[in-house]
């Protein structure tokens, strides 16, 4: 705001203030703050909030083609009902069999654990009512998920895209972390050729997932792939992993592990190499073995980094689509379909509302898992560090 005061008469002639420094300055500062924030907020609204709202609306509609175009009539929660109780239930949740005694036992253990978890928070007054509500909600959702997962895994059942995704995430991240950690530990040692292997270990991460999927598709083709002579010698050339749901899921997980272990490796290597030398030297002076050095000194020190890298992968791993799509086309049947692929298949067949409903279920699952992980694992690790 620029203001020039007109002066008249023979008053003292001095510098004419061009700007009112007092109130106007503060006002300007206030506006400037908003002004500078505006592009970021607009971007966020346009690219995140708006699509989120639109896709929420889409999940409550059903696409219909009519003369001259299309319309999206509101159908309420029909698309969600279809997933949980309707014709898409088997696809989404799987075939849920009655629990066998062993799985009952497993569920009892998990349920007891969750119950103890809730009771403990009752005894800890510092968590407050909000904290308690959060824990009860977590325990209820986690218990329900475990209950359904066990029913899908029990003999006679089979997991749908929801639990296949969870299996990809849990197994994938666990293997990626420990494998990445082992490789990082090796690469941090003073071994011959470690520089070469650092580069080699990173290569899978640089390759496009579609390329990886095609590579593994060829590798897993027992009849025609590069290892065909070996499989023939072993009498396995006439066996195909695509005929077996768990074989196909394992293939997808192997591809995913191969691609993402380098991410764990590089972050954990950086963490290991940034450990203070004095700490390690002190442990050595105290007579710690290599094993003890790793478990008692190094690993606890890199736990905050570990937790962060697991969190990043956790959020990312839920969105797996390239590998199952190219490697197995979601098959055999729908055995390797992840939630993202499920949503994609629905979208591809113009079931836009159904696709948006699957995507929202995925968003709920990712948010729930990430929030629970941050609350119960990540924050504690960070605080302990």
């Amino acid at each position, binding site marked *: 705001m620029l203001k020039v005061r007109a002066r008249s008469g023979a008053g003292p002639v001095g510098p004419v203030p061009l700007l009112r420094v007092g109130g106007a300055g503060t006002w300007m500062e206030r506006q400037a703050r908003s002004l500078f924030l505006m592009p970021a907020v607009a971007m966020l609204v346009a690219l995140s909030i708006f699509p989120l709202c639109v896709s929420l609306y889409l999940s409550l509609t*059903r696409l219909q*083609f*009519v*003369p*001259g*175009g*299309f319309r999206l009539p509101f159908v309420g929660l029909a698309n969600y009902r*279809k997933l949980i109780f*309707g*014709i898409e239930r*088997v*696809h989404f949740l799987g*075939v849920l069999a009655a629990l066998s005694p062993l799985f009952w036992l497993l569920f009892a253990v998990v349920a007891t654990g969750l119950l103890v978890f809730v009771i403990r928070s009752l005894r800890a007054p510092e968590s407050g009512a909000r904290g308690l509500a959060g824990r009860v909600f977590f325990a209820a959702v986690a218990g329900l998920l475990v209950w359904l997962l066990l029913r899908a895994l029990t003999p006679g059942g*089979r997991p749908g895209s929801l639990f296949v995704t969870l299996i990809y995430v849990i197994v994938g991240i666990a293997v990626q972390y420990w494998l990445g950690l082992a490789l990082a530990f090796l690469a941090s040692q003073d071994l011959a050729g470690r520089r070469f292997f650092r580069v080699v270990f990173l290569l899978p991460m640089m390759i496009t997932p579609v390329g990886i999927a095609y590579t593994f598709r060829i590798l897993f*083709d*027992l*009849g025609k792939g590069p290892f065909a002579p070996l499989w023939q010698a072993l009498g396995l*050339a*006439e*066996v*195909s992993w*695509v*005929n077996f*749901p768990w074989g196909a899921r394992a293939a997808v997980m192997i591809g995913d592990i191969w691609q993402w272990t380098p991410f764990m490796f590089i972050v954990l290597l950086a963490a290991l190499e940034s450990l203070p030398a004095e700490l390690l030297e002190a442990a050595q002076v105290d007579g710690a073995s290599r094993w003890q050095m790793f478990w008692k000194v190094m690993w606890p020190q890199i736990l905050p980094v570990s937790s962060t890298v697991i969190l990043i992968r956790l959020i990312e791993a839920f969105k797996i689509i390239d590998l199952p799509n190219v490697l197995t*086309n*979601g*098959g*055999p*049947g*729908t*055995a390797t379909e992840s939630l993202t692929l499920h949503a994609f298949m629905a979208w*591809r*067949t*113009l*079931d836009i509302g159904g696709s948006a409903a699957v995507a929202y279920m995925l968003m709920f699952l990712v948010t729930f898992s990430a929030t629970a992980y941050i609350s119960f694992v990540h924050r504690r690790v960070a605080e302990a560090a």
Partner: protein
Amino acid sequence: MRRSLGIFLALLIAAALLPVLPVTAAPGQFAGVTVNVLTFTGPQIAEPLQRRGPAFGRLTGAKINVVTVPFSDLYQKILTDMATGTNSFHVFVFAPQWMADYVTPGYLEDLTPRVNADTALQWNDIGTFFRDFSATYGGRIYTIPLDGDFQMVYYRTDVLQRQGLQPPRTWEDYLRIAAATHKKDLNGDGRADFGSCIAKKRNAQSYWMVWSVAGNFLQAKGTSEGSFFDVDSMKPLVNNDAFAEALRIYVETGKYGPPDELNWDVGDSRGGFTSGRCALTLDWGDIGTLAIDPKTSKVKNKVGAVIIPGTRRVLDRKTGKLVACSSSTCPHAVGGINHSPFAAFGGWSGGINKAAPAKVKEAAYAFLSYMSQPAQANADVTIGITGFNPYRVSQFRNTALWVKAGMSQAAARNYLGAIEASLRSPNMVLDLRIPQNQRYEQVVLDTAIAKLLAKEINIQQAMKEIFDGWEAITNELGRDKQLAAYRATLGVKR
């Protein structure tokens, strides 16, 4: 005299050229016009369009631009292109059974006046069934047929002869032959081969294959009986003993197939059969011409074709049970066997986007007409890579075409005879051509069959999944409306 001879020769040349140009097109008439054609990723179907596009361009000046997408995306791509007003494509070469979804909202150009005025097209030479089912909707013509589709069973004549076996007449025969020839070396390469090869991949052609088996159990009293739904209630005919038996047979064929059969589409099964690795296969007419391709085939003149195998037991619609064939239960049976040949897909046909500019529509029609005229079509149907199968009367009558292409006289008679037997059958199974049939077949049926083959669900669960899925779509779209459309389809004159 010399001048008269010159005029006579000029007229003769002009007469010879006439069939290759539609009456609506003249040389250079479409200079500067680009026609965008959308079809599925080839090489089949796209190949002849791409190959003949430049030739048509030289004749008329039009530029033919062929764009391809995977088969599983084609239906949606066409629909969304027109429904959203994008209109980036002018010609669609697609499955005519999807026509209901394109014609009803008014997206496709009515070609009736053009066809009636087009003598070069020789419309009446196109088989009656293809003119009715593939080209006409509600009494108007919307597409130009480029292909004729029936599924048949192909067998290796040399292998069956060696084993002392007869070609399959029933599905039980099919399984017996498959079992007898499985794990035998069928092409002399020292490796064990397969008794049966069927395309069973998800998002491909599997759902047509399963209906080629099921149709025989479900429909026995003529085409108008229908095989997908009850014509009175629109209840799906997939929750009964007949469909269960069909699924059992379909699953059992896998015992005699390649280990990764669940990942095989027709490209794989055709390659497997023509390379001599399969004793039996189920396919459209393509195998007949692919088998004579000297570059790829190891089974030239060793291939026989028969009408889809039939059954001795059919569905009793009142009880849902299987009953033995008799003159009342199977009035069209031959030797006690009910055959229901499946006109799967109907044959690739070309339609024109109504929203295309007038000049482009003219060029688009001229191109489709050119592709379908006997001068081009009668050559294309004899080439395996085109994916085009016979659909014109002249193609069935003129065996010289096929002999010239490399078939023996006997093989040509056998091949054309099998198609004609299907075409003439009063009990032919028509493919589903009601609104959103793509959801019924390509989504619900295909997914359930894929799960069944993967042993994710059993036969009872698969039947329930298909029944529930189809009922949900029917309820959503309106039972009366869907029933009326289904009845209208079955009333197609043949």
